[in-house]
């Protein structure tokens, strides 16, 4: 089977988010980058499905030239080929992103049986690109998936709900958005990283539609205003902790 997984390059934020001076992006001068967590599980799942059923898998990203790093990372864990929709680094809104991805999927020679996305990106969290792509391509879409099984041209998708899983069975080709916990992604091996450098990567520069969800500026939320009470150092703090627990009525 032929699988596509779409991923997004996001900064590895630590404890505090610092904005750029124009307040339109996160200052990444001291930060590394990664693939959004849900999508990392999507790439792992694509590799596992190909290992089990044969075929090939492709990773796609829409992002700046530096996002090639994330495409190579995914190829290092076993993805075969990559599609890079190169942007100038500015943010694309969900509709422009979905349009560019849809065009890229349509222009592929071999159609994909399964197209995986993350349920929502770690940074923008718009929840909608996959659904827009599915509608544009006329394909069924299931979101929030934590279990995937392929059989006889159909795919069984388990959607996480409170206290359980809702089960869908849809014909392929299909689109699914996945959540972290679907699997535990492997770490890339050194030979995997070497192979990834030589795997095919198709880069192009799509045109950007005017944003209809137009980001004006970012801001950090007001602080909690909390005043931390230091209960002590080391094991000697235990009686003070127990007093607090007792005061809260949880002892």
């Amino acid at each position, binding site marked *: 089977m032929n699988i596509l997984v779409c991923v997004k390059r996001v900064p590895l*934020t*630590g*404890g*505090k*988010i610092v904005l750029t001076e124009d307040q339109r992006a996160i200052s990444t001068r001291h930060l590394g980058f990664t693939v959004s*967590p*849900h999508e990392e599980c999507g790439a792992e799942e694509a590799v596992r499905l190909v290992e089990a059923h044969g075929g090939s898998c492709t990773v796609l990203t829409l992002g700046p030239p530096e996002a090639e790093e994330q495409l190579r990372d995914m190829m290092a864990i076993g993805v075969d080929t990559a599609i890079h929709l190169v942007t100038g680094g500015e943010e694309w809104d*969900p509709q422009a992103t979905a349009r560019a991805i849809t065009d890229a999927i349509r222009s592929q020679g071999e159609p994909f049986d399964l197209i995986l996305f993350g349920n929502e990106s*770690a*940074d*923008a*969290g*718009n929840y*909608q690109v996959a*659904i827009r792509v599915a*509608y*544009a391509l006329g394909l*069924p879409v299931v*979101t*929030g998936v934590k279990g995937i099984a392929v059989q006889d041209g159909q795919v069984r998708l388990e*959607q*996480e709900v*409170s206290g*359980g*899983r*809702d*089960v869908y069975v*849809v014909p392929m080709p299909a689109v699914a958005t996945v*959540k*972290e*916990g679907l699997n*535990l992604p492997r770490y890339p091996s050194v030979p995997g990283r070497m192979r990834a450098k030589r795997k095919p990567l198709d880069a192009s520069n799509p045109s950007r539609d005017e944003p*209809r*969800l*137009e980001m*004006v*500026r*970012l*801001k*950090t*939320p007001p602080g*909690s205003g*909390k005043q*931390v*009470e*230091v*209960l*002590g*150092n*080391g*094991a*000697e*703090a*235990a*009686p003070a*902790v*127990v007093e607090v627990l007792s005061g*809260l009525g*949880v*002892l």
Partner: protein
Amino acid sequence: MSVLVFVESAEDELSAQAVAFAAQLGGELEAVTVDSAGGYAPPLWAKALSDALRERGAGALVGPGTDRGNELLSHVAAILDLPMAANCLSATLGSPATVTRMRWGGSLLEEANVHGSPLLLTVAPHAVAAAPAIDGVTSLSADGETPVRVRERVSTATAGVSLEDADVVVSGGRGVGSAEGFGIIEELAQLLGGAVGCSRAVTSAGWRPHTDQVGQTGTKVSPEIYIACGISGATQHMAGCKGAKKLLAINPDAEASIFASADYAVVGDLHEVVPAISAEIRKVRGT
């Protein structure tokens, strides 16, 4: 100008918050849901909502910031080719409409213009107080055929206190050091009748299952007290535990960012502090 608000049920807390949020937009408010007799089928439910929007000439469709709310509003946006703003904290109708919405699980906010009408949005959980009651919910019917329909529900409920419902959560981070290291975390959780949580670093290392993860890509918890042991306080983690009423952080690094969000702090090595707390509880209880 009327406003439609999708509610999951008349009893659902986040739906009641969506109703309160929608009321602030002004205009005549109508709460709608979809007849669930045929089971949940997102494309048909979204079609019913899209048709209702058109028939009423409504100025906005508001949904709760739940998995289902975000899913359905995205379907409606795709059907109508309109923008959709997820997890909004505030909104004003207009041309363009303006919203403030959550990014990074709430660690960052975005002010945005939304070009297109009707305005489609979901409401960030706990952004506004819930409406006291949801009255007169119109039930829409979802007709048609689709392969995207829930076939069955499989239960994953486990014995013991769930993370989501626990009054006390004792959570371990990278500082715990190993899977075995969680023995002392489990012991304290058990003494307090609470649940064990962990950070993403822990699940990525394979020390605990993903079902234990508290965070932006894990479970969102809201206990009376959250005890964070050896957790640095990355935004990924804080997005999952900011609903806790009180936060106690135990960390050897006095500069750890978790202390900025904590109510109580113990500066020290969790491997010494946590067993000492357990021992003190036993001593107080005389057991």
